[in-house]
């Protein structure tokens, strides 16, 4: 069984903050297929289109028939643990700092035998296990054997916690608490056991419903933060940047205009100022302190979440300028991910479809409920994934986009989705 994580003691301020050493992070192009699937929460292996063989490790050709026609297909992960071992020594700095470390050989029902990390709830006896893929601290896929049946506190397993960003006992910044999504996020994080949820409060003179209720939660601390104001971002980062473990940037401006529907550029500029430049301002100020605390105890700094939009993938003309700003933010978020990964901080991009909020009031359902979006964000943190497409609309668009982006573009232009 997994021991529940106890509230960690306060940090000893006379000791040097440990710095992150990453596990081995280089992978060949072929092996990145495993990582790409894991980054989206899937365990996929190469399967041969010709003979049907499933193989691991990834290769250029089928190990059985030498066909190059290989496809990554999602796996159930069902298999049998054959043998286990415990590392008590490693020359690799990452593992050296985390010994002992348990490994096991798993024979997958699909065929291959793999070496996997063992969840603490998996004993040493031969047994049925469920293999899953997770991203490790270097952002690369690793395989983990889980017990067949879930048990209590599984997320508190020290090895798993290394690879995920569970909000439990962590200190989180939600950049905008004034929106329905922001408030749902704050509540979901509190429910998930977050220690502190700093909640951004721009233009405090604008009284919006829900803020008083939020402020009454003991974990919640309202902080002045306006992402359009560089000085506000700098000041808040100076104040709390060194304590934030997870940044969730949900600040956004959303209006429903294309090019012709609104004269001038003021709305488009406001969207860019918040949705794109806001992220840039936050990343410049909160990125460095986050990177410096990536190995700071069991509640180390771990993740950065961006609320993007499925419209970032392909422009939704009725919300054309919003789509463009989210596409810009998406591009910048990829840059942020590239800069944060070497520091062991995960960047999670969330691509919801239309959210059930006031700027989508006239849009027919299905619309993603703010609470559902918030739960998807918490789940993404717990699962340690990189990309999330919550809700049916996002899933469907993603599928169409993967199928053929050009066809999707035409469809969106014709009938608005």
């Amino acid at each position: 069984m997994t021991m529940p994580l106890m509230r960690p003691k306060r940090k000893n301020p006379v000791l040097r903050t440990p710095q992150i050493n990453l596990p081995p992070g280089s992978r060949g192009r072929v092996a990145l297929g495993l990582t790409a699937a894991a980054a989206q929460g899937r365990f996929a292996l190469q399967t041969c289109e010709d003979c049907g063989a499933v193989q691991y490790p990834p290769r250029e050709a089928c190990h059985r028939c030498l066909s190059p026609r290989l496809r990554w297909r999602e796996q159930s992960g069902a298999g049998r643990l054959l043998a286990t071992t415990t590392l008590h020594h490693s020359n690799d700095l990452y593992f050296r700092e985390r010994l002992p470390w348990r490994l096991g050989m798993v024979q997958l029902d699909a065929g291959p035998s793999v070496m996997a990390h063992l969840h603490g709830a998996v004993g040493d006896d031969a047994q049925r296990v469920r293999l899953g893929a997770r991203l490790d601290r270097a952002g690369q896929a690793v395989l983990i054997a889980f017990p067949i049946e879930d048990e209590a506190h599984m997320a508190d397993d020290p090895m798993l916690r290394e690879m995920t960003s569970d909000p439990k006992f962590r200190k989180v910044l939600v950049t905008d608490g004034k929106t329905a999504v922001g408030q749902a996020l704050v509540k979901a994080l509190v429910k998930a056991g977050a220690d502190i949820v700093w909640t951004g409060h721009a233009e405090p003179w604008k009284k919006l419903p829900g803020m008083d209720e939020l402020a009454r939660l003991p974990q919640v601390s309202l902080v002045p933060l306006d992402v359009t104001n560089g000085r506000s971002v700098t000041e808040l980062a100076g104040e709390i940047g060194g304590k934030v473990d997870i940044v969730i940037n949900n600040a956004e401006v959303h209006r429903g205009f294309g090019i012709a529907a609104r004269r001038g550029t003021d709305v488009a500029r406001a969207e860019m100022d918040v949705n794109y430049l806001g992220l840039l301002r936050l990343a410049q100020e909160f990125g460095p302190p986050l990177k410096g605390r990536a190995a700071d105890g069991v509640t180390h700094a771990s993740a950065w979440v961006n609320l993007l939009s499925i419209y970032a993938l392909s422009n939704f003309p009725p919300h054309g300028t919003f789509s463009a700003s989210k596409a810009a933010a998406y591009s910048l978020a990829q840059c942020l991910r590239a800069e944060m990964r070497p520091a062991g901080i995960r960047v999670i991009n969330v691509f919801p479809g239309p959210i059930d909020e006031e700027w989508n009031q006239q849009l027919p359902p299905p619309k993603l409920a703010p609470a559902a979006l918030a739960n998807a964000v918490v789940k993404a943190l717990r699962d340690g994934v990189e990309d999330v497409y919550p809700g049916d609309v996002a899933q469907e668009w993603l599928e169409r986009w993967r199928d053929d982006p050009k066809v999707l573009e035409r469809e969106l232009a014709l009938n608005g989705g």
Partner: protein
Amino acid sequence: MPTQAPALLTQLATALATGDIRVIDLTQTLTPEFPQIALPPEMGQCWPFRIEEVSRYDERGPGWYWNNFSCGEHTGTHFDAPIHWISGRNLPHNAVDTISPQHFVAPACVIDCSGQVQNDPDYLLTVQDILDFEAVHGRIPAGAWLLMRTDWSQRRDPEAYQNFDETGQHTPGPSSEAVQFLVDERDVLGFGSEAIGTDAGQGYHLRPPYPCHYFMHGAGKYGLQCLTNLHLLPPTGAMLICPPLKIQNGSGSPLRVLALVQGGGLS
């Protein structure tokens, strides 16, 4: 033969040098935190003041410090020109670049409503307030600013300054009748307020909506808002210097508002 300096300006220079005439700053500092006027979110919005460093004796500019800033024409302490309002849209010389510069230096009368506003943030200046003022201080001269002192600028917390609740903003301003009296009977140069607009926070519900904007600008008069330090001015006798930026066809502009005050007594 040396030219003679004009006597009045020489006296002014001497009075400024000796401190007999003091210069009082009626301007709020431009900061990103100073609130901007808030319209319903679906409408076009006035930009708040924003500032970004260009360089500060660093790799971006080793020997110098400077900033870029952005704001709207109606950000911070600012001037309203007649073209700002639909009622003044067709008047001649109605924009900040075409207004006669002669109008940028003018006397000011200050009516103290701070007592009333303390009890009622929605307080509206009445015609009776004006008549009471005149009974003590004399008739408001044509071409003078009428400044409504409310001490509203003492509210340093932006939340208290904006004073919103679910029915909107609650800040003082003039009644529709008082505005019409000032325009028709006194021919003032304009109206100045310490709150975020020349009209009261609930001015949209007066008749007509926003009467100060409607009547003042419709008659070619000006507005000043977000003023501060009005409590340092005498009821009459102060001279305002308030030239807006020369923005082509501008509807207004942030500006520095200075008052010349004679005598050392008031402070």
